[in-house]
């Protein structure tokens, strides 16, 4: 029943989000003041199309939601580069199958649809210059994350994996396995064949558009101290003798998994297995088939910029790393979206596809937000914020300048 209540809760939230999304940019000026998406965008502009899950869809993440097109990475990248951009990502989508049942649509099924309505997803994919995919997260997060963590923390994991008896084998290749949860309940895992789905997704995208640059974004580690994904029972279980880290994978050899830093390393191992599906594809196919955006590494890099007064890595609830994640402990926050946008922007720079005005455009968006959302706040130093943003010389510096300036302030909107 609790799971059902969660579904209902999600449904209620989506209701709010639907309204919000339609409302974004409505004629009261709440959004339109912040937009510059028609600036110099020609009909033949470079076109980027996003598909995948809620991370790309950016319904949950932007705060306030009415700022979705200023915060969501899909829009940020599109707007600052004067691209045409379309977001066809769907919250809850796995590589195949649905959130409620495996017979429902996931990304793979959606890619096989015709353009029966005016959304024109197929047309956009066929005419895209770049197709940007974020999809693996739900293949893991829609299952019992605690048991998955315990699975990879097990000192025998590698042997089990080699024998094909690990949950990760089922996650990668599909199939059903059962485990006993820490509370004694039997849990059934029924995974789609993730690796084969990725193969099929790439094949379908190539069929639709042989020339588009394909980009797959890896899944980041969302675990920090206090995460709702970490049930106390799981934390307690990880501390037990059974999980003593004999190989020194998560700390010094012989130590217990007894800190958030070590638990994050366990999660990183799990994510490396999941994200490794993309690496495996490239290893077994044309290695140029798609570009990988390593969001896991980028979030880790930013997380490691956060140290406390003793110089120790800060993974607490108010750490820099935690601020990458939305309040729900899962989706990217405004800051997280900006970091993801920066990751794509770096790739575009490397490919020489970015606009020469991208940095200036990015600054313009952030300065506009400062003026509209924060300058009315008593005590907020607008001039210092604008100056800090305008003096930044890199995308990431603009991001840091903006989010440092607004930290602790509630926007007026």
């Amino acid at each position, binding site marked *: *029943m609790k799971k*059902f*209540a969660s579904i*209902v*809760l999600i*449904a*209620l*939230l*989506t*209701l*709010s*989000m*639907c*309204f*919000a*999304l*339609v*409302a*974004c*940019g*409505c*004629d*009261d000026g*709440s959004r339109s003041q912040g*937009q510059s*998406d*028609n600036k110099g965008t020609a*009909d033949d502009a470079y076109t980027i199309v996003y598909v995948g899950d*809620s991370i790309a*869809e950016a*319904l*949950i993440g932007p*705060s*306030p*939601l*009415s700022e979705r097109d200023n915060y969501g990475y899909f*829009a940020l990248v*599109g*707007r600052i580069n004067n691209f*045409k951009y*379309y*977001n066809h990502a769907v919250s809850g989508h796995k590589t195949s199958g*649905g959130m*409620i049942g495996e017979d429902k*649509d996931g990304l793979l099924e*959606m890619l096989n649809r015709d*353009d029966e*309505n*005016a*959304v*024109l997803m*197929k*047309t956009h994919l*066929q*005419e895209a210059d770049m197709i940007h995919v974020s999809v693996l997260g739900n293949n893991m997060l829609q299952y019992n994350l605690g048991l998955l963590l315990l699975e990879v923390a097990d000192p025998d994991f590698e042997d089990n994996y080699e024998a094909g008896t690990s949950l990760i084998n089922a996650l990668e290749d599909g199939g059903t396995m059962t485990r006993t949860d820490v509370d004694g309940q039997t849990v059934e895992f029924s995974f789609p064949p993730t690796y084969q789905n990725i193969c099929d997704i790439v094949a379908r995208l190539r069929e639709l558009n042989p020339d588009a640059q394909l980009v797959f974004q890896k899944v980041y580690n969302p675990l920090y101290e206090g995460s*709702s994904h970490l049930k106390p029972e799981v934390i307690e279980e990880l501390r037990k003798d059974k999980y003593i880290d004999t190989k020194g994978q998560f700390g010094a050899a012989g130590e217990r998994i007894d800190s958030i830093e070590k638990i994050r390393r366990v999660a990183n191992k799990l994510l490396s297995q999941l994200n490794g599906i993309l690496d495996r594809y490239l290893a077994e196919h044309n290695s140029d088939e798609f570009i990988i955006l390593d969001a896991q590494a980028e979030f880790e890099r930013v997380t490691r910029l956060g140290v406390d007064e003793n110089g120790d890595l800060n993974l607490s609830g108010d750490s820099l790393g935690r601020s990458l994640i939305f*309040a729900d402990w899962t989706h990217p*926050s405004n800051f997280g979206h900006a970091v993801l946008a920066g990751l794509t922007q770096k790739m575009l720079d490397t490919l020489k596809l970015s606009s020469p005005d991208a940095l200036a455009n990015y600054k313009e968006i952030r300065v506009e937000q400062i003026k509209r959302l924060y300058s009315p706040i008593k005590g907020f130093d607008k001039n210092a914020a604008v100056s800090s943003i305008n003096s930044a010389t890199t995308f990431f510096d603009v991001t840091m300048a903006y989010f440092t300036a607004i930290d602790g302030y*509630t926007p007026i*909107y």
Partner: protein
Amino acid sequence: MKNTVLKKIVLTALIAVIIASCVLTLCACNNNDNNNNENTANTDNEYKYFDKNTRFDLSLGDSSKYEQYTNVMDLPAPIIMMIRNAALDMGNCYAEFKTDGTVHCQIQTKKGFINDVKKLLTLMKIDLEEFLSDFSLTVMLNNYVEPMFPGFTAKFSTGDVGGAMGLVERSLGLNLKGLDLNDPDIKALFDEMGETMTIPADILDRIPTDAVLTLTFDSTYNIRELTTHDGKKRTGIYVSEIGKSHSTQPYCVFSLVENEGVRTLFFRAEFMMTQVYLTETNK
């Protein structure tokens, strides 16, 4: 059918219909003929609007078209009909597209819907208290509502429901009418919710039985003639300013189809596995 399964179906259906209604409200769009512009007018140089105010009624539950055009989270049609009949005033669930490029959408409950909903819950042997005990208002507010609408919780927790809803209204153009927030009983209800951060099990008993709730949404729209990659024509209604620039499209895109002189709007919300449609009315 086990009682728990039944509960799930009915409760999901209740939520789903509300969502579907809202989506319809949001999407309440209008369209023109694919092949001509006789019912649209060009304004703002390139953006097409209807040349006369055009209303589309929510067609939720039209059994002749249900299987083909409607899907609310894959729920069986009879469930949707049951909930529609209990809760919605279908004559006042519509979207109206105006010649000035604005669109007004609304969903309205039936007078006395509270009693009908209570009867439905009783019929289905659903224990609302048990159901609500699984909800954590604190988690919902902290994890979702507050970040989506910063400042909401501070107002809500101090009983300023009007202020909290005002954030939503000012931000999104969304309004809920029909509850008198100055009514002592309603005020006491929200004060209690703000204080305890729970939804009282007797919430349905504390809303006036004759209450009529209307959810309204106002935005802008523009009509777009679109061509698929293989040359087929589609007509879309883009709701909101986003998409006007041709650099992207808004979240809410309605598809307009005309068959035998009847114009119908379709909207699909992928993440809810929901598709609904609205039919042009002469009202």
